[in-house]
């Protein structure tokens, strides 16, 4: 079996396992001494399911037409579902979840993958660069608009970023970067005024000034206390007071990394951060060595997707990025995010040229 394949699955599996442990710790009830919560059990089930889906997908041999069909169909379906979700009952002020009988899922998480598949298709298509870029942005903006109404501004920005990266990957970097920089500079003030809610502006300002602990930045402060009080070796598993006494907000989803840092300290945190970087490196190697242009574009975009999510989430828990609802891949609780990421990694691995050898 191929080393890249084994390395990727081992790393992701390990991250996933540590994630489950952290979710378990974050959701255990201190007063009942009940350490296994429903969250941990569900997360475990999704993990096993996702892991096998990824293994299956890694063995599928895609040709361009199959990819095109699957990508277009799934993207169309998911776009419709995303629009459909807008009319569902809001949870915590946002309509993001689609309820099925047994489970609810977030189509937006899967829409990310389908959007990236379509973007990678456009990227390798034989059309003129300007039209190509136009189509790339159209696709991105379409998805972004769909989720923007949930409302989920951070995810729509991510879609914009995917489009930008797709454009970057298949164009002349220097000119592209120059022009996009100019455009962002022009758009930013308008965006600040028109699209940002007051609470979002407050969060950004709080981040820049680093004050107001009981206001918008309170979550971040508690997260910093959790991380900082972990010290070098951590407080030990299930020993984190910040999470167990419910001081940390969203501790099994967005702030799960703080829980981990508190309990496993600087060593544990360094290990996990390195492992994430290692996964990105392995995926990037697949992109580099892949024989197909499509594989290169898709895997590259997935690297960017995973990388940006990892970086945004960790920087948020460390108080260096604004608080957005970005989950930490393979770590945070959430079936949709976990499944979509396993699918993404599985698809990437299917482009590994040595994968077909077994």
């Amino acid at each position, binding site marked *: 079996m191929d080393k890249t394949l084994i390395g990727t699955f081992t790393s992701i599996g390990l991250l996933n396992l540590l994630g489950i442990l952290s979710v378990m710790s974050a959701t255990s009830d*201190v*007063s009942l001494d009940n350490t296994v919560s429903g969250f941990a059990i569900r997360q475990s089930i999704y993990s096993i399911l996702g892991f096998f889906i990824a293994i299956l997908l890694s063995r599928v041999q895609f040709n361009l037409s199959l990819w095109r069909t699957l990508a277009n169909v799934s993207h169309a379906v998911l776009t419709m579902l995303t629009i459909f979700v807008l009319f569902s009952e809001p949870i915590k002020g946002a309509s993001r979840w689609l309820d099925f009988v047994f489970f609810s899922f977030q189509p937006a998480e899967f829409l990310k993958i389908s959007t990236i598949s379509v973007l990678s298709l456009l990227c390798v298509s034989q059309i003129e660069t300007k039209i190509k870029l136009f189509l790339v942005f159209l696709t991105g903006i379409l998805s972004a608009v769909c989720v923007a109404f949930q409302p989920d501004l951070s995810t729509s920005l991510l879609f914009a970023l995917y489009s930008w*990266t797709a454009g*970057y*990957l*298949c164009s002349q*970097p220097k000119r592209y970067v120059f022009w996009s920089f100019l455009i962002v500079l022009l758009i930013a003030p308008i965006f600040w005024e028109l699209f940002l809610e007051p609470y979002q502006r407050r969060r950004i300002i709080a981040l820049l000034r680093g004050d107001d*602990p*009981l206001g918008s930045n309170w979550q971040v402060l*508690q997260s*910093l*206390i*959790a*991380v*900082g*009080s*972990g*010290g*070098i070796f951590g407080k030990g598993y299930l020993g984190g*007071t*910040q999470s167990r*006494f*419910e*001081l940390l907000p969203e501790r099994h989803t967005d702030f799960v990394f703080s829980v981990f*840092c508190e309990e496993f*300290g*600087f060593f544990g*945190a*360094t290990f996990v*951060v390195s492992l*994430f*970087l290692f996964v*990105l*490196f392995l995926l*990037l190697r697949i*992109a*580099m060595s892949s024989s197909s*242009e499509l594989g*290169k*574009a898709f895997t*590259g975009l997935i*690297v*960017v997707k995973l*990388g940006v999510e990892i*970086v945004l989430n*960790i*920087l948020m828990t*460390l108080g*260096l990025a604004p608080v957005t609802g970005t989950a930490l891949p393979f770590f945070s609780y959430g079936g949709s995010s976990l499944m979509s990421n396993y699918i993404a990694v599985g698809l990437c691995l299917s482009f590994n040229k040595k994968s077909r050898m077994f």
Partner: protein
Amino acid sequence: MIEKNLLVVFLVFCAIFSIILFRLFHLQVLKYDFFKAQAQKNIFKFSYTDPPRGLIFDANNDIIASNQVSFCGVFSVPYSKKRHLMIQKYEEIKSFVEQELSVSRESIQETLNNFTLTVCNLTPIQLERIYRLKLFNPNIEIKKTYNRVVNKPEAFSSIIGYLAQSQSNQSSFAPIRQRGVLGVEKCYDDFLSGVEGITKLSINVRAETVETITLRKETSGLNLKLFIRKDWQNRAFELLSGKAGAIVVLEVNTGYLRTVVSAPSYNANAFNNQDVPEIRKILNNVEKPLINRAFQGVYPPGSVAKIFVALGLANYGKKLKTAFCPGYDLVGKRSLRCHKRSGHGTMDLVEAISQSCDVYFYNLSKLANYDEIFNSLSLFGFGKETGLECIPQSKGTLRPKDKIKHSIEFEKALISIGQGGFSASPIQVAVAMASLLNGGKILKPKLVEEIYSDDSTTYFNFSSPEVMQTIELEKQTMEAVKEGMFKAINSSSGTAYSSRSKQVLYAGKTGTAQVIDLKRKTKQKIHEDHAWFVGYWPVENPKFVIVVIVEHGGSGGQIAAPIAKEFIEFAGG
């Protein structure tokens, strides 16, 4: 093309990941101590449990002071970094509590330093109300405390004293507790107060308690057994009702204080229960009920002093066989009267004591110099503290020679009849009197017999007598004085013959101290004398000394002696 661009992307990620690692190092290694402290502060809260205060018993193990369970509602302001918001909220809660529980603003105990409001002595209805509020508000607590209850408070307050709220000095965030501020409650507070229990509470972000760890269990205070006899104390207080003064009963051979009453008295429970209007009344009372007259009251001893002058001077060999009393005597250039204007005739020491002849003592004082008189009285403990532990007391006045501004001769004569610059407290007189009956031992008066815990372990036992000083007493004079004191009561010429008792034979000496005082209300001068009586019983083998003083009562024979008689008949009959 794509490869090259991907490489750039990866390098960007590498850069960001190294920022992450630096940040982790910064937070977890460099600023670890800071965040550790923050995390501790986040989750722990301390809760304190009041222990029951030690009980106070009398000599017969009858209870004097006990405790009553009371419930308090504690309202705390949720923490905020902005202090002015907390103060604003504090005021809101105060008004809310006032309305909700319909209590007066005065009965709300405020502690602004840790932002809590406490309402105690809750009625069942108020308690129920708070319990309901508490269900929705984690910042409300119900606390069990103990209220000090003194039985028959008026009779006992002057020695037991009272409690008041005071911050425990252990930590500024510790709750307010009742500490003794007067009398035995203050004196033995360290033993009585017990140790408060401390519970460490782990709290979550909604201030709900998720875990409690008992760091220290509360221990109830140690109990006190006093030498005071409750029945005697009550009787003595009854006898003083409507008067201002004091009664002290001391055991002759041991120094045990069996009765200490001061009148007018106050209700210590008013202080213990924070009954503000009642407290105000006590504090504003012009009669000063908070002063324990038995220990702190100083009065010229009047003729009572004659006993000690005669005995003291006999030690210097200064004795006077007889003196003739024409009703006055010339001291220097001035004529000093005897209280009997027609004169007593020829007097020896026995008669001079029994009939309280002043002229005999004017003449006796002429035999001695001032220092001899001063030392004689000083030997008996006048002008000094009695040694009674930590109860506030006055030393009285006995001035050395160089402090006397007018004629020494004159002052000598006045001191010898217990006037002039000489004054003493009832307890001093009792101790001095006891020394005469126990062979010259000046004993340390004792209030507390034993300090013991609930499981009857004795921590301290103070029952062994302590002798402060021993005086050589001239036997002949001592016998004469005793005979004089016996005759004062039991001979028809004695000053207290009308107070003789058919039931109990006792001896004593009256005293009438002339005073000029200002009436506190009207600022009029009062010339009414202080009435003294010092006595002992049984006559053979004396066991108890009694001292009675009635402020501005009139003559000792008419006012103080009958009180003593009533008491001795009650106690010794």
